[in-house]
């Protein structure tokens, strides 16, 4: 149990730093990249143990979102998106319950539930998160076309990065 807490705490720090110190700069390389923002920090919420209390998920999402917002200088924008993602996590997990249940698996990782399940899980969560995020960034659906373009572009590259990371580290929890 302690090990899981430590792992998630380290992941929180690692993803926050990676997002704000490395990935943020990569999105600034050129103009074309504004449609391909790499957002990895939602992975922290995805990989929280299945039994995490829903309220705790929301609080952690808020903390992570605000941490990212501090560096992106956009108070509340990432946080609102990630809180929403944290809110639907419970429902998505319940919806994606495998035929024989989650069993004793503590964490929704690729190593435990398989690459196909994990891809679906990641796709839903990142799709929702990115759409919500860009909607709040524009704050109006007048530019729905731009919002969708950015969502699709950033979705493909972010999910690609997530799968790569899972391939490399392949954490059990």
């Amino acid at each position: 149990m302690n090990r899981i807490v430590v792992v998630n705490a380290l992941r929180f720090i690692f993803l926050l730093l990676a997002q704000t110190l490395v990935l943020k700069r990569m999105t600034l390389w050129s103009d074309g990249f504004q449609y391909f923002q790499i957002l990895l920090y939602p992975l922290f919420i995805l990989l929280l143990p299945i039994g995490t209390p829903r309220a705790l998920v929301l609080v952690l999402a808020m903390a992570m979102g605000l941490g990212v917002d501090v560096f992106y200088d956009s108070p509340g924008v990432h946080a609102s998106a990630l809180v929403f993602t944290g809110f639907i996590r419970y429902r998505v997990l319940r919806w994606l319950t495998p035929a024989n249940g989650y069993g004793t698996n503590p964490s929704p990782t690729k190593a435990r539930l398989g690459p196909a399940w994990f891809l679906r899980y990641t796709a839903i969560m990142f799709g929702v998160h990115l759409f919500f995020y860009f909607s709040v960034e524009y704050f109006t659906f007048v530019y729905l076309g731009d919002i969708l373009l950015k969502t699709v572009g950033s979705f493909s590259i972010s999910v690609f990065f997530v799968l790569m990371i899972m391939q490399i580290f392949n954490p059990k929890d």
Partner: protein
Amino acid sequence: MGGFLQFLFQNSSTFLFLLLEALCFYMVVRFNDSQREIYLSTASIYAGSINKTIDNATNYLWLKSDVDELMRENALLRQQLHQMALLRGDSLLGDSLSREDVAAFLRDTLPTDSLRNSFVFVPANIINNSIVAQDNTLTIDRGRRDGVASGMGVISNNGLVGIVMKVSDRYATVMSLLHRQTRISASIRRTGYFGVLRWGGESSRYMYLDAIPRHEKVYLGDTIQTSGYSNIFPSGIMVGLVHKIDTLPGDNYYNIEIELSTPMAKLQKAYVVKSSARDEVRQLEQR
């Protein structure tokens, strides 16, 4: 209360979610320039439309007093219109006199004081009405206190209504046009020939104009107005249009049916006509 607490507890994560989202959006709007711009302009648009809706609703609440106000103004304007017509000498116009001649004649002969307030209009609400009886009457909410007296004329914005019969302190009954005893002097606007208005007792939309001689030319659609001879109504008040013309063999007069301009079946507002000359004229004529 216990049920409510249980409800809160069962949905605690949902409420926490809503709370955190509210906090996030507060920060988004408070600290991000572009989002704040959008929020403020959108909010002002919606606030504007809400204000407009409330305004519309309250307008409706004040509708009655507004209408009363307009009625008073109408009465005043009618009075002024009548004075203008008198001053221009419309009743004296004919083949031999031009408008300038009449104006000069009036200027030279009449002190304008003698024309002032010869008719006064009192706005009234019609609180009872009937059209299906043989002798129809109306009730208005103006009476002795408002200066209404028996024998005064009642008109609406569209034309004639009737003549006041009985008066109490605050109310008065009006003999409707649709009454078998109605006899009102009316003339053809085009020629000035006058006859007597009479109700046939059938439809609330039609009356008869009697005593127009056969040698006079009358056409369908001719305008019928009050003649002003009785001093009950000012001259020139619209009565209606000629609807049907019959000639009976051996009769020297037309049988003219008039379509009334006043919708007697849906009257709401009326004006009582007070004539300052009426008593004097009546005394003179009865002498």
